[in-house]
């Protein structure tokens, strides 16, 4: 009797002729998530079976697999020869001692002598006789014992369905450049987009010496947490100190954020082109801060020429974002109190509704391409 983990996927079955492609990528992502743990993964039809692992590491494996996008549910199962006595021994291990239950058999191997209903009745009957505190409820049982008779002469017995991360396998929906600050929102935005199958690169802007090393380490940590879901990612770090100084010197104070964001977008687009990413992803949420107005977005979108800017959080409340941030495990890191873009240059009254023409006029006072070139030269890339 071997302990195995069944991984069921979602949505891939919708993909028709592309299914093989999706399945291969998903398989790779599962393998990547289990790096460092001895295991084997088989792919019988419609699911994956993780086996040949050390049973003492079951929980760790489950925790890692739960973060792989594309996973619908997981079950820890016993794999036994397709023999009624063997199956019952496994059922004894997974079945509850009390409460209501039902047995749900699925017979893929039609050579098995009993059909599904007969298996349900036989196993259910034996359990009832053995455990008097149990009762049967076939409509809304507290527990369900699943028996899956496979075509290869084995059966899988399990009782629990663990919810996976859902979504699509990372790598099946292209590649995006996420603007990763140290805040609460951007990691959540990254998580949402990665969940739809997009491979992520992250770009972080710092303004040392106005920001400190702790702030940068915090962003690296956020990227590490995101990477658990995305199967690794690249973190690109760019210094925008001189851009901020130039804006501060030459442009109206209230335009600092508006103009800085335009620079960030230009740099993100350039870098996206360089690494082969097809869109920019930001954590903006409509109206959350002064720069996140529709006018602010218009002004920053205006400099992005060749790709869409995705803002998955645009319609979310802060409380909803915080909830998601807690769920994915980035909240505690996000709230560490280090400033990301230093408030030395923060205007007292940032422009809420920037007019594109005025913004462009203000920007005319800057040597945009030289500033971008200098910022790009500060690029450091970390593989996480």
């Amino acid at each position, binding site marked *: 009797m071997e302990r195995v983990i069944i991984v069921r996927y979602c949505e891939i079955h919708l993909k028709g002729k592309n299914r093989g492609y999706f399945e291969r990528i998903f398989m790779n992502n599962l393998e990547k998530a289990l790096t460092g743990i001895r295991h084997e993964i088989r792919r019988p039809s419609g699911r994956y079976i993780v086996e040949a692992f050390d049973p003492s590491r079951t929980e760790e494996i489950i925790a890692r697999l739960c973060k792989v996008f594309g996973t619908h549910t997981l079950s820890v199962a016993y794999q036994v020869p397709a023999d009624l006595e063997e199956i019952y021994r496994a059922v004894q291990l997974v079945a509850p001692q009390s409460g209501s239950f039902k047995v749900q058999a699925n017979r893929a191997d039609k050579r098995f002598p009993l059909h599904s209903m007969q298996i349900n009745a036989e196993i259910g009957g034996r359990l009832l006789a053995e455990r008097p505190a149990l009762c049967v409820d076939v409509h809304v049982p507290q527990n369900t014992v699943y028996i899956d008779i496979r075509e290869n002469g084995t059966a899988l017995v399990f009782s629990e369905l663990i919810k996976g991360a859902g979504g699509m396998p990372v790598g099946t929906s292209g590649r995006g450049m996420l603007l990763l600050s140290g805040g609460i929102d951007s990691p959540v935005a990254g998580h949402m987009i990665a969940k739809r199958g997009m491979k992520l690169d992250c770009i972080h802007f710092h303004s*040392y*010496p*106005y*920001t*400190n090393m702790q*702030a940068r380490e915090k962003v690296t940590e956020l990227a590490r947490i995101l990477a658990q879901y995305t199967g690794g990612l690249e973190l690109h770090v760019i210094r925008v100190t001189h851009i901020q*100084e130039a804006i*501060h*010197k030459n442009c109206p104070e209230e335009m600092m954020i508006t103009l800085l964001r335009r620079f960030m977008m230009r740099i993100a687009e350039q870098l996206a082109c360089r690494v082969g990413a097809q869109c920019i992803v930001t954590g903006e949420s409509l109206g959350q801060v002064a720069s996140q107005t529709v006018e602010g977005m218009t002004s920053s979108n205006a400099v992005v020429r060749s790709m869409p800017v995705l803002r998955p959080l645009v319609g979310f409340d802060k409380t909803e974002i915080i909830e998601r941030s807690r769920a994915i495990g980035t909240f505690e890191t996000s709230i560490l*109190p*280090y*400033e990301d873009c*230093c*408030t*030395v*240059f923060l205007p007292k009254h940032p422009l809420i509704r920037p007019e594109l023409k005025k913004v462009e006029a203000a920007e005319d006072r800057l040597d945009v391409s030289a500033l971008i070139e200098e910022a790009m030269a500060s690029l450091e890339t970390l593989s996480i």
Partner: protein
Amino acid sequence: MIYLDNAATTAPDSEAVSAAIKYLQEQFYNPSALYGAGFAVHQAMEEARKNLLAKIAPDGFEWIFTASGSEADNQALFSSARRGNLVTTEGEHAAVYRAAKELENRGIEVRFAKLRADGSVDSDDLISKLDAKTSLVSVIHVNNETGAINDIAQISSKVKAYRPNIAFHSDGVQAFGKIPVVLPRTIDLYSVSAHKIGGIRGVGGLIKRKSFSLHPLIFGGGQENGLRSGTENTFAIKQFEFAAAHKFASLEQDLKRVRVWNERVRQGLNPEIFEILSSEGASPYILSVTARGLRGEVLLHMLDDAGIQVGTGSACSSKNRYSRVMLACGLDECRADGVLRLSFSARQKDQEIEEALQAMNACAASLKERTR
């Protein structure tokens, strides 16, 4: 690198490390052990205790080894402020301040005496806060941010004159081995730390007047007369003893050297940018300045890049952005934002101070220009 953050920690005295290393290696024995080798370590430790105590206190005091200055402060407060109220100052190190806040949570009333602009306590305000229920007064000896020296002999005698049974504690971490101190009998408890004078981290001391009754903070095997359980760190203790011997031997001479540097920096900093916060009477080991309108941590990073390591009183952090002590000195946020703390070691060279001075002026001017 030119290291000017010696109030944070000092480089360990390497001669003292060499002399004490045998207590980490061959003489590793537990000083409580009953065999000869253990007893020998015990004797060595008692010698360290006696020698360290002799630096600062006449007869009538005893020395309890702790693991840090913070632990000594905590033991002093939690032992003596058990009822009524505790009177302390707004200029305390976090080890006293946070311990006092914790006592407040546990139902002890805590009264904070005001500071003067230089960071020393307004002693009239402190005395006015005493009453029949005051159980403990704690006053820092040398303020760790401004270097301001509180005249603890005078303050403690005023406190004892008010009511002799009020316990008096002082945090002497920035004073021990740096300025001359002889503990008067009006002081009941005094905390010190090794790593501010060439000792290594992991050892401190709580000096206690002999007849004063102290409660342990850590219970266990009954070491340190039951006042501080835990197997003693005999290597750190011996290294502390040797480092202190060096430091005390040259105390007056060091003070003179450091005073010259302190004065040089005071005179040499660009007065259009920097304002000196430490008073003339402060410990010359600590010099606090503010660069008005600039942010201390940004300057710190620029100096770091220029090879100068200094401390700061502000941070690029949304929490604890300004130093509590600096605000208590009456600084507005603009000045509190620009605080830098230079703290010297007597082992520095004249040239280093000159270089640091030039770098400070250059970095501040550059930052002022960049953020104008």
